[in-house]
């Protein structure tokens, strides 16, 4: 009987999943409920928290920096997602068939994927330095600039977009190249034999076949864009004049620099809601448009 009990899946199954359940329970599930609770508290991360009801949310509604941080996050997302995903699709189509130097081209596009966000930020601080930076030198050669980039409130957010597209493009290209491997060559030939031009072949054959990858990348990039933080921390610290204070930067600033953890938790709940709305909407739209092959 004992032998049988030990061999039963009930016990063995739970023993197998127990470490994972405990760890994810403590560091994954527990914080979800606690985050909501925190948003109803005043909490400085040290002293005993006090219950303040909906006060944090009421303050949020009238907080101009918070409202602007949402606007900036949306502007950033609306620029970053099409530029990185659309750009990557173009690059992947160019890299699909091997040509001379294609290994070199691929490597040069992929290398930023392994470059950490901190290293990227430091490199671009130097590259985009208004006084001595290489960017102003090169742009000056073609009659542009000089620009203030990270130090100009009107340009900083766009400079962040450019830098993060540089950092993320390679990952998207990798996904698209993998998806393109699944595009059967005879399908393209058949389209060409039927007299389809390049554009028609792309629009009616390649685009639909790539649509699952596109949906994945749009959802994934949107989530990442709504949460952008590292590159901003390393370059502009939310400045100048709050020009790059996006949602997560504001959250971090409130919680871990000003120790308004309860207020920051309310910001976090808003971030969660925005992320959820975007993801659900994109998946809903995507599932009506995406073409899945078996």
């Amino acid at each position, binding site marked *: 009987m004992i032998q049988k009990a030990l061999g039963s899946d009930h016990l063995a199954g739970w023993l197998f999943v127990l470490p994972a359940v405990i760890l994810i329970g403590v560091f994954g599930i527990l914080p979800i409920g606690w985050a909501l609770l925190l948003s109803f508290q005043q909490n400085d991360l040290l002293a005993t928290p006090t219950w303040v009801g909906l006060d944090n949310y009421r303050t949020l509604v009238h907080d101009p920096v918070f409202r602007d941080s949402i606007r900036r996050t949306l502007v950033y997302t609306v620029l970053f997602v099409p530029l990185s995903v659309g750009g990557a699709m173009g690059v992947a189509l160019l890299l699909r068939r091997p040509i*001379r130097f294609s290994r070199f081209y691929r490597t040069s596009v992929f290398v930023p994927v392994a470059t950490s966000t901190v290293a990227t930020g430091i490199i671009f601080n*130097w590259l985009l330095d208004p006084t001595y930076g290489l960017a102003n030198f090169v742009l000056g050669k073609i009659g542009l600039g000089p620009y203030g980039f990270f130090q100009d409130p009107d340009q900083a957010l766009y400079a962040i977009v450019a830098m993060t597209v540089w950092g993320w493009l390679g990952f998207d290209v990798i996904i698209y190249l993998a998806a393109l491997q699944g595009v059967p060559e005879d399908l393209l030939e058949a389209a060409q034999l039927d007299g389809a031009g390049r554009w028609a072949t792309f629009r009616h054959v390649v685009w639909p076949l790539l649509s699952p990858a596109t949906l994945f990348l749009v959802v994934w990039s949107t989530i990442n864009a709504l949460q952008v933080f590292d590159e901003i921390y390393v370059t502009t610290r939310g400045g100048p004049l709050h020009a790059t204070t996006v949602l997560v930067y504001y959250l971090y600033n409130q919680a871990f620099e000003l120790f308004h953890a309860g207020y920051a938790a309310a910001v976090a709940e808003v971030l969660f809601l925005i992320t959820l709305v975007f993801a659900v909407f994109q998946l809903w739209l995507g599932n009506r448009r995406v073409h899945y092959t078996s």
Partner: protein
Amino acid sequence: MRTLPFNPRHLVLLPLAAVMLVPLVWMLVTSIETLPETRHFPPTLIPAGIHWQNYPDALDAAPFGRFFANSFIVTGAAVIGNLVLCSLAGYAFARMRFFGRDITFIALLATLMVPFQVTMIPTFLIVQHLGLVDSLGALIAPNLVTPFGIFLLRQFFRTLPIELEEAARIDGCSRLGVLFRIVLPLSMPALATLGIVTFLWTWNDFLWPLIVISSTNQSTVQIGLASFQGAHQTNWSLLMAGNVMALAPMLLVFIFAQRWFVQSLASTGVKG
């Protein structure tokens, strides 16, 4: 209009490659320039000589060796933890029948829908309660197992032929024996993917270490690099030398094992 003597795709790809590589090449060039050479406009594109001194100077300015050791410990623990714990859990969810299996699996997966930024404040408080703040334990414990890894391995295990496992069971092999002697050896592609993705993710992680680590001794490469920048604002040649040292190992691994990295990233995206 005659066709070009070369493939017109080069006209786009060559400038693109330049844009992607110039930031990294410029980092390398600056790291061997003297300070006056960096404080010059137009920029010094080709330095007068190779000024290696920036590298020992950077090593004196910040304990990069320590940062590397810390990152190595944290990343190693996360990779091993994920490979072992996600294998165990993934196999149980894929093949075993036990009370509450499906609801548990769904509960674990549901945490993927909540971004880390949303839960990081209570996670900090939990780590504080556990007495782990400002220690490597704070970086290791939450990263030992991921719902993503469990999901990835469960999906892979389910594609394996179950007959092999049944035969081994009939021959008296234990559940654990089946997992380690039959299932895992067949799952090398999935395990490699999980290992590589965990490695990249943990090594480059920034926000969580930024929150829980405050002392230089416990800093990872990324945190160390950020505070190194804070301490040497516009000393660009020194900063770039430090940056090269911090980046070089990861970039070299990536370039030499590019095929593995690319396959791993591709399979998380397309199949996940």
